[in-house]
């Protein structure tokens, strides 16, 4: 069985976010790019499944929509252990276009399931996984926090309010995964890094998916107002501020 893991190339979570061109374009000067953390956890789980001699998973392929600048991120995934990679050569503009371009490549591939992080830490769209399954005309399970391969069947678990839901699903399908799918991302070892350069990274042309949205502008959160100190005895002032100014009570 082959697993595909969709990778997002996103700015490091400590990046100081700024915009150019009248707050309409993200300023990527000096930005360090990383694997989207949810996708990285998906990859970790995929590797665990492949390493589990009891599972039928034989191959893990990472796939991303991105320009050449995304290749260091893809190589990191290969260093972590993915067997090969596909880069769909296009700017990842919006969720619809990304999902459509992924689907156009994946529809010709044979796989057990595709794993997507539930969201990306740049635009937090929560949209690619669902759209992808629709384009592929496959079932999908969202917010997956556990996945086991049992013969041809796959068992997935979801954290639900107050408990856990476990279900069995036939392959192929799309698993939209959240935190909990694996504990910690893996650090690429030296051997993995050395092997990464020898693994195939196939660049394919992107299909002409429609771009349905455009960024008009971005707005940064307002800086936090200074902390107000209130005399511990003055409960009335605290109450008034919480009620009238903060409007939380």
């Amino acid at each position, binding site marked *: 069985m082959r697993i595909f893991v969709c990778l997002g190339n996103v700015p490091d979570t*400590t990046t*100081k976010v700024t915009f150019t061109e009248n707050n309409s374009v993200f300023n990527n000067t*000096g930005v360090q790019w990383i694997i989207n953390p949810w996708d990285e956890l998906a990859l970790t789980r995929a590797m665990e499944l492949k390493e589990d001699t009891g599972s039928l998973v034989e191959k893990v392929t990472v796939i991303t929509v991105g320009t050449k600048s995304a*290749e*260091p991120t893809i*190589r*990191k995934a290969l*260093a972590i252990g993915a067997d090969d990679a596909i880069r769909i050569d296009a700017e990842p503009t919006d969720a619809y276009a990304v999902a459509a371009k992924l689907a156009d490549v994946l529809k010709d591939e044979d796989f057990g399931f595709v794993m997507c992080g539930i969201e990306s830490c740049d635009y937090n769209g929560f949209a690619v996984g669902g759209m992808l399954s629709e384009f592929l005309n496959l079932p999908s399970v969202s917010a997956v926090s556990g996945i086991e391969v049992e013969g041809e069947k796959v068992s997935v678990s979801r954290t639900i309010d107050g408990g856990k839901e476990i279900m069995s699903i036939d392959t192929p399908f799309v698993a939209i995964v959240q935190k909990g799918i694996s504990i*910690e991302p893996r*650090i*690429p*070892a*030296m*051997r993995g*890094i*050395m092997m*990464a*350069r020898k693994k195939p990274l196939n660049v394919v042309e992107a299909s002409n998916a429609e771009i349905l949205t455009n960024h008009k502008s971005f707005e940064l959160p307002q800086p936090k107002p200074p902390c107000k100190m209130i005399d511990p005895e003055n409960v009335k002032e605290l109450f008034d501020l919480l009620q009238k100014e903060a409007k939380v009570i």
Partner: protein
Amino acid sequence: MEKNKKVTGGEFIVKETEAKDIFIPEEFDEEQKMIAQTCRDFLDTEVFPNLDRIDQQEEGLMAELLTKAGELGLLSISLPEKYDGFDQSFVTSMLAGDVMGAGYSFAVAYSCHTGIGTLPILYYGNDQQKDKYLPKLASGEWKGAYALTEPGAGSDANAGKTNAILSEDGKHYLLNGQKMWITNSGFADIITVFAKIDNDRVLSAFIVECNFPGIVFNPEEKKMGIKGSSTRQIFFNDCKVPVENLLGNRGQGFRIALNILHMGRIKLGGNVLGAAKYAINQSVQYANERKQFGLLISTFGSIKHKLAEQVINNFVTESAVFRASHNIDQYVEQNLEGNTKEKTTIDAFAQFAVEAAVLKVFGSEVLDYIVDDNVQIHGGMGYSAELDVDRGYRDSRINRIFEGTNEINKILVVDTVLKRGAKGYFDLFGEAEKAYKELVNLSGTAEPEGDFYTEKKQIIRNFRKIALFLIHTASEKFQRKLVYEQEILNNIADIIMLLYVSESSLLRVEKLENIKDAEQIKVYKDIIDVFVYDASGKISKFAKDAIYSFAEGEVKDLLVKGTNCYTAINGVNTKEARRRIADKLIEDNKYNF
């Protein structure tokens, strides 16, 4: 870079280098960056969350961390593939050392294991010794250490009293003696131990497994810093070492020790970079949070001055470290024919002994400066043990002491240059005499002119001339007794260090012109402006300190005139330049130069 341009250690003292011929950190490839990131991830996940446990020397923790680093392959980056290593360049191992350098006590344990704990066997071991020990050291299954220092033999390593006598059956050496300040000794499995066989005047080296009979370890030393690093005394009482564990030839120990120290010194120059960058990040992040008088302290000129100085000092050290590291790779590549890689690599360390000593001294002083100002920027919180700022301050101090004290290394800088000159590695004395003779025709000041790089190169050329005319006159005056004039040697060493570091950083910025855009390059030029301006003032003082201590009459006047002339440079608005450097750091909220 021209691959085949012959590189010679110490030659910078007489010869200029072009920007295209040096390696700069901005040229790391994707793989090297990934290795660096793995080191960072390792520190973030395994080391930083456990700093207190490490410093409390929790039983087994440091050894476990080294084992985990071994599982990631980080203990064998530069070892040959046949011993389960990854055969990476020296530059790559220096990059890993740079990043790991931020790891406080772990950095010391890592550096010890991968450097002096492993490499003596790689460079001097025979095939059987390498086959037996290197794979275990590469994986981290065994931990390595190195025992040279004794109570009566520190900087004077050859004065060691530990001795080795061949047993009657000729199968063992019996080691007797005492070693101290042995890093990693609390958990090491093998130690390279130096001892004199019979009544030899020179040392030999032995691979000693810690389970050999007759070894006793003292309890852990109580130290000012690097508290998590294991440091013990070791006693050898008729310790039976099999004869096949003699490392190299009998009497080769001192040579082994010296060459391993050359390697250790340049590696220390790399280690301090990671620690320095970590401290700078702490400084700027605190300054960007701490408010006084209603303003962030990062808006104050005094704090900006400190932040800028931290950046400048780290940037220039880094420039020199990677220039020299790449030179070592180049030397190995150019001299491999007919030699093993191990032999050529150890030759390369010896070849670049001057640069190694420069980097050891300069780098450790820079780190001490940076961690000191890190405390100062944090104010009371810096003095508190609540943050890690005090830990960085305490841990830094050892760098000026181990791998040969800075005092020994400064003398080594000049002494090695003189010896290289005498042996004809480069035309030291010819160039030195030329620099002296040029002084006669000097008139007024020689303020450099031209565009940025032309002007700065002229200034650095003048730094070189000052070093050279001092070498000429001091050598003439003291002849063989110059070695006893340590204060003068220190003055000359300080000038040589500033020359090497100034030139390395200027060439780096010149090369950066091809990588950065016109707007980005400005702040790098600010770094050069301030550093070279400061260096000029310092060199003027160092030179005059030397001149007034030994020169007389007309010679003295000539040397002072030359110093004045060569250090007269165009003024720089260092206040504004430092503010611009600090502003970038403050804006980025981390070291990103």
